[in-house]
């Protein structure tokens, strides 16, 4: 008997009866607030990315566990063979693996966008009267945080294993800064693929096809001078090579102006070409 009573009292509030008065208070048309600025809207979308990390923290697995595995695996796999010891190799290799890991996780931008579109939430965003690229820029802002986190995790593992950057704190910070600039620009490649490809799987497939040659056919693992001439030609124009050269230099306390220039040129190019293509597709879907 008392059981039954409890059940009814518990259930009663869950039955929602729309009340005309309550609805009237929220439906009264108020003054329209001014449209948010481009930056404000982008930051708000960035906040959404943070909230998603808060609610689905397991998505940080790819920026924590994956980079740790990469560093350990390659340091001990190649270290003895390619340098005198894993520790010597690490000195050369750490900036490279940092770049490789972060560039690899840029592909999640495309996968995330594709999932959002698949679920339908982008229909809502695209009918909002805000600066059009804001939803995508905000998404990439969120991803930039993930890139920084991944870079810091790798740095931490590297330092623990004996990596000693000649450039000190400033050099390391500058190196991570360059890496983040490039990754932000490179993410626009994936927003484009995230928009034009039909499924998450195909985005993943294309990403791997692009990322493997780009990261491995570079100066990340070995000096390009050990490679055949035709391969050197590709390695030389590969933006990842320029990025690694620039990051390696600043972390070591030196600088490589030519690599730096190429890196910034590539970054500007990615934003211009793929940012434009992305927005074209975004507006026309």
């Amino acid at each position, binding site marked *: 008997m008392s059981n039954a009573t409890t059940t009814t009292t518990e259930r009663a*509030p*869950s*039955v*929602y*009866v*729309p*009340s*005309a008065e*309550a*609805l*009237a*208070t*929220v*439906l*009264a*048309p*108020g003054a*329209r*607030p*001014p*449209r*948010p600025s481009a930056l*404000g*809207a982008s930051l*708000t*979308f960035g*906040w*959404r990315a943070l*909230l*998603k990390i808060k*609610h*689905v923290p397991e998505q940080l697995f790819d920026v924590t566990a994956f980079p740790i595995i990469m560093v350990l695996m390659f340091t001990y796999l190649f270290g003895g063979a390619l340098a005198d010891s894993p520790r010597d190799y690490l000195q050369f290799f750490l900036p490279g693996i940092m770049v490789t890991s972060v560039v690899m996780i840029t592909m999640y931008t495309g996968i995330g966008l594709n999932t959002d*579109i698949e*679920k*339908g*939430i982008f*229909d*809502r*965003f*695209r*009918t*909002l*009267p*805000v600066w059009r690229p*804001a939803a995508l820029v905000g998404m990439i802002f969120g991803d930039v945080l993930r890139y920084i986190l991944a870079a810091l995790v790798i740095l931490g593992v590297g330092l623990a294993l004996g990596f000693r950057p000649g450039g000190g704190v400033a050099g390391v910070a500058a190196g991570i800064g360059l890496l983040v600039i490039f990754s932000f620009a490179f993410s626009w490649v994936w927003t484009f693929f995230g928009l034009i490809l039909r499924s998450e799987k195909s985005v993943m497939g294309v990403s791997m096809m692009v990322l493997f040659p780009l990261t491995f056919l570079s100066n990340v693992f070995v000096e390009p001078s050990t490679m055949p001439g035709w391969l050197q030609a590709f390695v030389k124009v590969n933006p990842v090579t320029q990025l690694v050269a620039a990051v390696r230099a600043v972390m070591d306390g030196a600088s490589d102006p030519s690599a730096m220039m190429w890196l910034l040129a590539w970054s500007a190019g990615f934003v211009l070409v793929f940012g434009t293509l992305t927005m074209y597709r975004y507006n*026309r*879907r």
Partner: protein
Amino acid sequence: MNRRTTGLAIEAEGLTRSFGETRALAGMDLQVPAGTVYGLLGPNGAGKTTAVRVLATLLRPDGGTARVFGHDVVTEADKVRSRVSLTGQYASVDEDLTGTENLVLLARLLGLPRPAARERAAALLAAFGLTEASDRQVKKYSGGMRRRIDIAASILSTPDLLFLDEPTTGLDPRSRNQVWEIVRAVVSHGTTVLLTTQYLDEADQLAGRIAVVDHGRVIAEGTPGELKSSVGSGTVHLRLRDPGQRPQAEKVLRDALNVPVQLPADPVALTARVGEAGSDLDASAQAARALGDLARAGIVVDDFSLGQPSLDEVFLALTDHPAVSADEHDDELEAAR
């Protein structure tokens, strides 16, 4: 309050849109008066969702023009966006976020400062009976709660035109009634609502005018009453005791009424429209005569009624096929993406 209840909310002419071989819109014309609920009624795959996506600036038409409050949906998309809201068929809020977070996010994007956004979110959650669930992730909401938060998100800044794409599909009857009540409240405050539905009774309940859509075109338009009377003034429904007598009953009815007789799936049922234009008798006289003829032929009738045609029958009469063809459903959705 009457800031936007005059004139036309939507004017579309000859809208076309194809997805590969599929013609989702094949020359659709629409005139939606402001301040009313307008129903787009049709089976799955008829082109309703595509039409809504074009009008909400999500999709460009291949041909034709559409204006929302006088603004072209292609060339003045931004002006249109500032006056409309869309509650799509699928997730229109972020399932990973809580109810409050979703509403605050969207309120901020509409330009509200953070404190005002929080206040607005709380007020809407309260009005929609979601206060208790406000800190729960939306993916943990029930179907009815999901629909309510979807609609709440659409009226954060009260829109002049609200698109509701199949708002009650998959809801239980109580949740459906709640959505209906909300739609009535929204429209009573001056917002125009364009509602797509495949439920004929929903269009009948809510919409002031209805466009019946099939194969990407409007095939009939009018108030629910006009649509019904365009089909005939009434329908005779009857159920026999013995299914074996149905062929004979069909013949008797056809001779008596001089109209085609439908044989529904129910093996003892027959229906026929009566009182169509051109007949010299009114509907009740025709029905009475038919009943007499059946009795004389020795056919036992268990149930006999004469009523207004349902929208189901309207649809059947207009298209020669029934209103719901679920197999086309996925094609349109796939195409609309």
